[in-house]
């Protein structure tokens, strides 16, 4: 389908049109920070942000998810909920966050397909929003991405002034755009030029780079090096990096119960927690902070690529922005490459 233009003052009309069939998640502002939230009113949408405080991963991979309910006792039984398959739209997702879904798809759909994630994923349309002004710690261009990368979205909106330039990437996107038919215009040459300009400027603004060439082998060579002890000295194990990371997917499973019945629940977990891997015997394969910090870096830059052929990092920079002790992943990888063996 051809590119389109949507005047900014028609955005609310478009959102209202799709709202009747889709649950819409969009960026909203709360206390000067941006979060992805379900919206009822298109006027709640705020596109004045670099990136959201936390990624929209919680929309597809819920922070708390009831897996099934059960009843105890001699007549123990379990009951699964029906997958309601409500249709969702995530509007205004940044290309890096969209790429994160492509990355965790590989895990959640591998072998045993995770139906909780997959059913939401299949029924969600991603309307991306190009980054006109990337953040100071963004490095998506080093991670096979870019501020206007449309590979992992169904539709890409780019802000070109008083209008949005719209690129439609697939059938899913096409069907969603068709709902707002008469709101769109055809792009003029000046629109196309503006688009090119904005995309180029955005890419040039990204100043931080991470060299990931051959990183899997490099990391293989220095696993036992004392570098990891040094680099994780500062880490306090708070886990905010895992919370804010769009590709972090670790979870815990718990039974919550009252006298006769209960539910098995999946919740987010963090590998930075000392008890993450503790055995009932008391043995802990990752007893020291260094083991856990090193494991996280390796999981993203060595283990995940070994298993799924893709580095589990999108360059969103949230871990760099949030870390209370200023551990900087670009710094870690860059220094790791310089370690003399």
């Amino acid at each position, binding site marked *: 389908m051809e590119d389109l233009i949507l005047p900014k003052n028609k955005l609310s009309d478009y959102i209202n049109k799709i709202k009747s069939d889709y649950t819409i998640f969009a960026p909203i502002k709360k206390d000067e920070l941006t979060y992805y939230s379900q919206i009822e009113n298109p006027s709640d949408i705020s596109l004045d942000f670099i990136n959201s405080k936390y990624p929209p991963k919680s929309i597809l991979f819920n922070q708390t998810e009831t897996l099934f309910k*059960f*009843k*105890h*006792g*001699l*007549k*123990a*039984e*379990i009951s699964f909920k029906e997958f309601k398959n409500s249709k969702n739209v995530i509007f205004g997702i940044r290309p890096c966050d969209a790429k994160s879904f492509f990355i965790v798809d590989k*895990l*959640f759909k*591998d*072998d*045993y397909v*995770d139906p909780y994630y997959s059913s939401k994923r299949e029924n969600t349309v991603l309307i991306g929003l190009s980054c006109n002004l990337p953040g100071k710690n963004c490095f998506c261009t080093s991670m096979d991405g870019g501020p206007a990368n449309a590979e992992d979205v169904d539709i890409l909106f780019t802000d070109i002034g008083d209008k949005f330039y719209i690129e439609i990437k697939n059938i899913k996107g096409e069907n969603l755009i068709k709902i707002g038919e008469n709101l769109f215009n055809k792009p003029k040459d000046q629109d196309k030029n503006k688009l090119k300009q904005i995309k180029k400027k955005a890419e040039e603004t990204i100043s931080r780079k991470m060299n990931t060439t051959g990183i899997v082998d490099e990391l*293989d060579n220095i*696993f*036992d090096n004392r570098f990891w002890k040094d680099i994780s000295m500062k880490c306090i194990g708070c886990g905010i990096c895992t919370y804010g990371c769009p590709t972090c*997917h*670790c*979870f*815990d*499973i*718990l*039974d919550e*119960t009252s006298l006769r019945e*209960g539910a*098995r629940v999946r919740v987010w*977990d963090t*590998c930075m927690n000392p008890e*993450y*891997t*503790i*055995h*009932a*015997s008391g*043995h802990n*394969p*990752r007893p020291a902070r260094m*083991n856990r910090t090193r*494991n996280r870096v*390796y*999981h993203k830059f*060595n*283990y*995940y690529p*070994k*298993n799924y052929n893709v580095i589990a990092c999108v360059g969103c920079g949230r871990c760099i922005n949030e870390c209370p002790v200023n551990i900087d992943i670009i710094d870690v990888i860059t220094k790791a490459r310089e370690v003399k063996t």
Partner: protein
Amino acid sequence: MVTIEKITEENSGERGIKTFRLRFNDKKIQNDFDFIPGQCVMVSHFGYGECFFAISSSPTKKDFLEVSVMKLGKVTSALHECEPGDVLGVRGPYGNHFDVSGWQGKNLIFIGGGIGQAPLRSLINYVVDNRDNYKDLDIVYGARSTGDLCFKSEFSDLEKRKDVNVHLSIDKEEEGWNKFVGFVPDNLLSVKPSPKNAIAVTCGPPIMIKFVIQNLLKLGFSENQIFTTLEMRMKCGIGKCGRCNIGNLYVCKDGPVFSYDQLKNLKGEM
């Protein structure tokens, strides 16, 4: 959903071990359920949680499946309070398995200690039920004391067989015990199995495994002739929750059976 058919107390005490015989409530599922020794299941005690256990019965027994459980933490303690007739949940089988078809025609030596014997029991019974497919079978098994030895009645049956060599041991002297006294790795040295056309499988506490492997290498076994099973804290059992990894391998999915030459090259924490 399964019902507990029978509970056998293997030994008692603080870290007591019980074998649970489970039968699927749905007959068709029980008929269709198949696995290869080494594989595991996730057993749910609803309200407490789930644990990943090696199936300790052989797949040649189609009417039930057994898991041998040591009382150690929240879920296992709750399981030890169960009685026949109680209903649990089982999902699986998960994980990889012992190469029972590739090992046909070979001499087998299985070295177990304490509760580590559980996955080996599945393997032993499978081999015994398919005895002609394999050559010599030596079983080296030991525990801290006679009270800690598991599967006693099965071992006494095995000892009576002419086509199986059983070498039991206990760590410390006890009255009435006339077999080997000492640690399992030392018993192994005294048994002195030949590495020729042989496969060695060892399961047990990490410290025992370490010395058993050392001694197997001393006896001339090569790294790809030695197999073991590992364990980890697990939650999902299917390689998604991220917890049980050693390097890029998940013990629930790419294990729990590993060859020694695999482990030697694996960078990661065990």
